[in-house]
């Protein structure tokens, strides 16, 4: 790629910056109206959905774990990678915590250790991916298998359950006044994520390298280290999600978190984060968690099976993405192949 190519890329990136800001805001407004519309629809059409203000907040306990995991995957997707191991990671962390607790470790210490283990595994993902220049998809796919086996092996057939009341109420189903404790955890984590992505040097590096890895390298960003940190964060958040699920259900299972992977990725994409990395806003992910969560809740309360609810979720994912890509291409954004070329500009295939 010559000098002209570089400056052209940079130019188009700057030119589209102004336009993109409005795309982000437009997308958030659309999400917000979608949320209102769906709340209205379910409240009117589905018996037992509307539980007053606090009842609605209480319902969020059924899906905030998805949101926590989505924030973690969000970091990785911002950088243009993907993490398929999150679901297995959450299951694994729950099992590790429960086993530590069974062997006499205080529950909060056990949770802390388990989450640290998750961050460590995230670090290992990042190291393998950057050192050997492997696709993140491939490494986290393999890791998903391995974590699943580990969880089964450690937990055995009958993993421990019945954690201390203070734990399952603070991290799980307890309330502070009318507001569920889980919502505080989610809000705190979401706030930290917002600051990390949009107010720190790390966040700027993350978004830049997701947008154009080569440009990030020329700009002095340590690409490998930034990607590794994204994977550590992904592991960390998946771990926290695992703890929250364990506390909510007051039990663990070797596949408890597995089903969260698809909704979590859906929330990230629905939130407007570009699946190729480099664009979007973390606030969209937080908002999309509620859009998706209330959609699942509404459908389940309506009496639709989990399988069909997932089907609707998958449909939302695909339609949202097709819509977004169509809009961007009409708005003069780079085409699919152009962006693939940018992403794989260095070290990629011919």
């Amino acid at each position, binding site marked *: 790629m010559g000098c002209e190519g570089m400056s052209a890329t940079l130019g188009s990136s700057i030119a589209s910056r102004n336009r993109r800001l409005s795309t982000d805001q437009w997308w958030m407004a659309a999400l917000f109206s979608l949320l209102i519309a769906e709340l209205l629809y379910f409240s009117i059409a589905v018996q037992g959905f509307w539980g007053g203000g606090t009842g609605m907040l209480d319902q969020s306990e059924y899906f905030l774990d998805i949101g926590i995991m989505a924030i973690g995957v969000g970091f990785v997707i911002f950088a243009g990678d*993907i993490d398929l191991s999150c679901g297995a990671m959450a299951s694994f962390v729950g099992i590790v915590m429960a086993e530590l607790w069974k062997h006499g470790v205080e529950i909060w210490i056990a949770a802390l250790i388990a989450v640290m283990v998750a961050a460590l595994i995230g670090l290992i993902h990042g190291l*393998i991916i*950057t*050192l*050997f*220049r*492997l*696709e993140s*998809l*491939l*490494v986290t*796919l*393999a*890791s*998903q*298998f*391995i974590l*699943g*086996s*580990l969880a*089964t*092996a450690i937990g055995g057939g009958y993993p421990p359950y019945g954690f201390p009341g203070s734990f399952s109420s603070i991290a799980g189903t307890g309330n502070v006044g009318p507001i569920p404790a889980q919502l505080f955890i989610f809000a705190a984590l979401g706030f930290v994520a917002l600051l990390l992505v949009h107010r720190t040097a790390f966040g700027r590096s993350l978004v830049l390298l997701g947008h154009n890895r080569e440009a990030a390298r020329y700009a002095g960003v340590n690409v*490998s*280290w930034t990607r590794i940190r994204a994977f550590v964060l992904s592991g960390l958040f998946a771990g926290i999600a695992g703890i929250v699920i364990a506390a909510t259900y007051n039990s663990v299972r070797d596949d408890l978190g597995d089903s969260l992977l*698809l909704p979590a*990725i*859906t929330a990230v*994409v629905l939130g407007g984060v570009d*699946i*190729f990395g480099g664009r979007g806003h973390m606030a969209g992910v937080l908002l999309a968690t509620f859009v998706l969560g209330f959609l699942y809740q509404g459908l389940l309360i309506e009496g639709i*099976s989990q*399988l*069909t609810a*997932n*089907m*609707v*979720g*998958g*449909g939302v*994912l*695909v339609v949202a*993405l*097709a819509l977004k*890509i*169509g809009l961007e*291409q009409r708005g003069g954004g780079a*085409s*699919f*192949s152009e962006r*693939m*070329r940018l992403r*794989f500009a260095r*070290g*990629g*295939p*011919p």
Partner: protein
Amino acid sequence: MTTAQPPAGSIRAGAPFSRGRSAVAVRGWLSMREVQLVLVTLAIFAITTVHDSSFLSSGNISFLLADAMAVAIIAVGQTLVVLTRGIDLSVAPTMGTAALAVGFLAQNHNLTPLEGLPLAIAIGAAMGLGNGVMVALAGIPPIIATLGTLAIYSGAQGIVAHSQEVVTLPPAYFNLGNGDLVTGVPYLGLIGLAVTVMFAMMLWRTRFGRSIYAVGNNAEAARRAGINVKRVIVSCYVLCGAIAGFAGLIFLAHVGSADSTTGTDSNIQLTAIAATLIGGSTLTGGKGGVVGSYLAAIFLEVALAALVDFRINPIWEPAGVGVMILIAVLADPTTGRPSVRTVLRSLLQGHGV
């Protein structure tokens, strides 16, 4: 034109210190993933047989071959998609839906396997078309599009199942799924081989096959060379779906039952992707082939059976698959990524990443 070369088969340049032409040839052969897989599979057979002589019995060989075929056939289709730099996560419900539909008709209306064949393929092709349209025409990244359709098609499978199961099938299915042509050579193994050879020939000998490699290597160059890139990609997803549908029939015949979660419950899509990667295809497209995927599926089956034979708890099977994916990718010298030795050396010398 480098893009249209058949994969793996050629001996690479280099090896300056080799002692003679035959040594070069042997090293060339040994660096082929297909040869490696056959050798490793035979080695596992040898080691396990020493431990337990019944492992080499014709009954066991026949069972292992037949048991590996659903994954092997799905992996053949998956390879076509992976060659275009795509991926298809939705093959599990595609297989499951085809198995269910054929199974219900067989159970209630005595549909024969041969009559079920076009139905299974048609269901699969239709689902594959959905994926292809989303990837090639709507421009959705394959991993996300097929993650979405994994959920959508699983729901469709649930609707087809309608809370019922396939439990009793006409005997023709059992004979097809568990019978042998001659001792140790099951029908299914041969069917899988036929499918593999057919698509290997398509990849190597036809214009369409070569255009798949071209698209995977460099879509832009392929377009400028006059290849209709979108049509090639859609065709690959349709073929992948059709083959997965066919695998549904194979699975149904072998296992003899099907329900609303057949395929997705065992995450067969991930095993098939693992077989594809272990078989030498790369996610960056344009490299690999269906023979490797077929052999890798058999290798996985034999390796996991050997683990059981050595009394290793089957809960480690998924971990075994995961580790083998990593080993297979790291052991591939042709991708231009740093080898384990290079990485370790640079780490020890403190040069960092």
